[in-house]
């Protein structure tokens, strides 16, 4: 079973994402900000991180940079999942090393499709 770490400061979004991911046979972990997410990844890397952009403590972009610089051996795939839907944001995420990008609002098909593209579903 593949593991997905859902990183979002919204409990509602985490709940919705968890529900969809569990129907896709993922084991789901949650983090409320980038710092928590980084600690979780360094302790036990998941297969994929579903990452919000704007969060307190540590943003999604700062998390991505910190993950890249952490020297982690098994770097998880990173899929941004955000309301920042402008082209400039998407390009910045790709340049920072994101593997895929989900624009909110999203549905099951979108999430499944993106997880297939990064090779974890």
């Amino acid at each position, binding site marked *: 079973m593949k593991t997905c770490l859902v990183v979002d400061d919204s409990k509602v979004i985490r709940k919705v994402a968890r529900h969809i991911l569990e129907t896709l046979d993922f084991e789901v972990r949650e983090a409320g900000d980038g710092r928590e997410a980084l600690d979780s990844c360094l302790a036990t890397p998941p297969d994929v991180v579903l990452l919000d952009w704007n969060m307190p403590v540590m943003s999604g972009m700062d998390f991505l940079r910190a993950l890249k610089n952490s020297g982690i051996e098994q770097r998880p795939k990173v899929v941004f999942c955000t309301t920042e*839907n*402008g*082209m400039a944001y*998407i*390009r910045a995420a*790709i340049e920072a090393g*994101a593997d*895929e*990008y*989900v*624009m909110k609002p*999203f*549905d099951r*098909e*979108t999430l499944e*499709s*993106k997880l*297939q*593209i990064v090779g974890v579903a």
Partner: protein
Amino acid sequence: MIGADALSGGAMQLIGSLLEQRTGQQIAANRAWRIETALKPVLRERGLPSLDALVGQLLGARTGELADQVVDVLLNQETSFFRDVAVHDQVAAAATAMQAEIGNRRLRIWSAGCSTGQEPLSLAMLFAEKAEGFPMPPEIVATDVSAAALARGRAGRYSQFEIQRGLPVRRMVEWFDTVDGEWVARPELVRRVQFRQQNLTADAPPPGKFDLILCRNVMLYFSLPLRRQVFDRLASAIRPGGLLVLGAGETVIGLTDHFTPSEAYRGFYRASGPAATTLAAAG
């Protein structure tokens, strides 16, 4: 209990037969609810009080613009970019092998039943990125029975939900721009596809012979006799040795011997020589 908007059996039959006459598509009895759901926006747009009123207008003008609109909304236009990645990998491999066989002649591909254009635009992206081995990009002809669907394909304009289905983000930023909250394919991508209206069950295929025909998730909406006719039509448009690609749940087996399963590519069917015939007694 029948609701105020519910269709009577006779009205349902009339609308079902209109769709079948125009497109060959059948609506299964257990999918009849789709008729009511799909037609509600038409009622709103035209200010009609009920589905019976719509049927009354249709009876008065069955070949008019209202009938076109009704048929368009009832057609199943489910599609997505790079639908079934494995199929696209095989298309790329098969096209490369075919191009090596045919030398400098331009490879020809037909996307039959292309709906709103995601399949031919996916092929266009694939071959734009894979120029090596091709003296010129393959010709891509895309057809559909629905004028409205083709118009969307030609415009290359997709919603946020549509653009995210199957399309990797790098390709999205490479080939699309955002305009008023929608995603619009760049002209240099759309130009690679020739969109044409064609009814697979009634019209001649696009002229010339194709090396590769994709007709995925189309046959399943046709009756068995109609599938045989359509296989004949596809066979007339493909060169011997060319490849036909069907949807995952579709097959030629028992319906035609114009095509035989490809040994090299799973789910692909190779066109036989000119002696092949449709199996009239099958099914």
